């Protein structure tokens, strides 16, 4: 049975391409770069609002510098959704960068049609007006990526193609799976889901005995050998650190999943509860038996609108009475801001060292007051306009001299700066209404 070797070369906008050298030594036929978390589109929208030629993940050239020698030698192809909310601009940037670095003789395909700002009539009921949307993108499936590969692409740049679909596409292309072979589409989607977060399947963010994961300074990005029946073996480059075992793989399997029996994707509805993970030892896990049901006929759409401004400040207090000092400082600051007549829509007070991360899950200290060595107060506030948001900060800095709690220590030396807050909107759109606009632009570089 033929197998296809694919690799996960990026897990988010903020990952680093260093582990690609070890991945390339394993000679994957495809390296997929997953650049878009839900939050990332918002980051890119702020970029594009500043400069119309932006809106893609700007670290793509760093990955391509590592990968292009293998691409030009015909050993590997690259598929990425780094196009973000502006794949055309990303492709333009790539061809300019290729020119600068002297790379030529390869085919770039750009997948278009996920941007729904120009299609207000198909947006879900209750969605904000098109004019107010900073972006609105449908999560496309693997089909346009397969079309790009069929057109001979060496590098496929997409916008908001669903994470796992980037990995499913080369498997469909190579194995010739049909678009209603639900179990195989499910199997390929599971493989994509396992590889899409780079080091999170090779022992990263590991909730088990994390301190036993080998050589974390040379971390592994993951690979998979996927057979034509959909059975896959997940593994890591032999020389890299990290680990692949039952525990690392099952953690990634359920990462950001809601109903594991019906994981909705643009290509197939995946049932993860039927599959088997077999730990083969030596950092290999076999995945088999995922089952699929027909795709829903809808695409998820995510959009965002501007929702005011927020800023934050962090202040540390030491023993004695660290918690009480921190709570007092928060109250003094909020009262001064209120007396000054500044309109704050929302305050958020967190005490690091006490319960900032776990909130009400942390039991109250039995003595009523803790005896902590130090507590960091983090204050965050949201205002309708940027000026008010900045003025609030001017009531926090003076606490150092002119407020009773002693020993105020700036935990963050940067002056609080207002940043744009976005409200996310999600819903479903009819895939049949989106698909006619989905297309692939092919260019020789």
């Amino acid at each position, binding site marked *: 049975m033929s197998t296809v070797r694919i690799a996960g070369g990026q897990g988010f906008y903020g990952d680093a391409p260093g582990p690609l050298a070890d991945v390339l030594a394993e000679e994957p036929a495809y390296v997929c770069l997953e650049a878009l978390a839900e939050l990332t589109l918002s980051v890119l929208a702020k970029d594009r609002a500043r400069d119309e030629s932006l809106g893609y993940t700007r670290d793509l050239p760093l990955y391509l510098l590592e990968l292009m020698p293998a691409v030009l030698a015909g050993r590997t192809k690259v598929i990425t959704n780094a196009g973000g909310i502006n794949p055309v601009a990303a492709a333009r940037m790539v061809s300019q960068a290729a020119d600068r670095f002297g790379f030529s003789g390869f085919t770039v395909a750009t997948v278009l049609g996920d941007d729904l700002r120009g299609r207000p009539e198909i947006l879900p009921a209750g969605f904000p007006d098109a004019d107010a949307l900073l972006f609105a993108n449908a999560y496309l499936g693997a089909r346009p990526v397969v079309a790009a590969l069929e057109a001979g692409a060496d590098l496929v740049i997409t916008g908001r193609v669903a994470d796992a679909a980037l990995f499913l596409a080369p498997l469909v292309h190579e194995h010739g799976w049909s678009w209603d072979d639900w179990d195989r589409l499910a199997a390929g989607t599971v493989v994509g889901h396992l590889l899409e977060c780079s080091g999170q399947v090779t022992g990263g963010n590991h909730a088990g005995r994390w301190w036993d994961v080998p050589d974390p300074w040379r971390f592994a990005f993951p690979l998979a050998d996927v057979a034509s029946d959909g059975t896959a073996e997940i593994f890591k480059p032999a020389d890299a650190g990290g680990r692949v075992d039952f525990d690392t793989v099952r953690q990634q399997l*359920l*990462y950001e*999943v809601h109903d594991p029996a019906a994981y909705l994707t643009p290509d197939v509805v995946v049932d993860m509860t039927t599959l088997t993970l077999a730990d083969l030892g030596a950092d290999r896990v076999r995945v088999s038996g995922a089952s699929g049901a027909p795709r829903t006929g809808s695409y998820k759409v995510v959009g965002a609108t501007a*929702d005011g401004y927020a800023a934050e400040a962090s202040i540390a207090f030491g023993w004695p009475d660290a918690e009480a000092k921190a709570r007092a400082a928060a109250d003094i600051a909020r009262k001064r801001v209120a007396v000054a007549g500044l309109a704050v829509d929302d305050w958020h007070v967190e005490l690091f060292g006490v319960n900032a*991360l776990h*909130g009400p899950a942390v039991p109250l200290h039995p003595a009523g007051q803790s005896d902590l060595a130090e507590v960091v107060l983090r204050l965050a506030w949201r205002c309708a306009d940027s000026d008010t948001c900045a003025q609030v900060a001017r009531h926090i800095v003076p606490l150092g001299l002119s407020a009773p709690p002693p020993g105020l220590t700036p935990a963050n030396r940067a002056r609080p700066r207002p940043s744009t807050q976005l409200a996310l909107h999600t819903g479903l759109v009819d895939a049949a209404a989106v698909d006619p606009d989905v297309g692939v632009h092919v260019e020789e570089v």
Partner: protein
Amino acid sequence: MATLRLAQVAFARSGDKGDSANVALFAPDRATYDVLAEQITPARVRELMGAFVTGEISVHPVANVLALNVVMRGALGGGGPASLRADNLGKALGGALLRLPVDVPDDLADHLGRREPAPRDPYAEADWPLR
């Protein structure tokens, strides 16, 4: 019967989608999975998380990988770009759920209740400079 912290018998990874968080709880064996499947209910998660979670809570069994997937809506103070929380993506919520107490039969507790804490400085003995 012994009462243990969930942290002693399972481990957890959390993730976000919009304003929802999911926490997958992983058991080491079938006997422990059965205990967790019976005791980790939406009501108990709600009691633990209090005002941190404002929406629906559901628990999905995933017996084939000995896991329970806890889904909490309205769990991130608005979610990603809208939340004022430092942990706007809920990365630490898995640890919060590990605070839940679970009642475990004595023989299973003897076998499980020995979770070693992490060493204070895990890489103190590592080769240096790094390879």
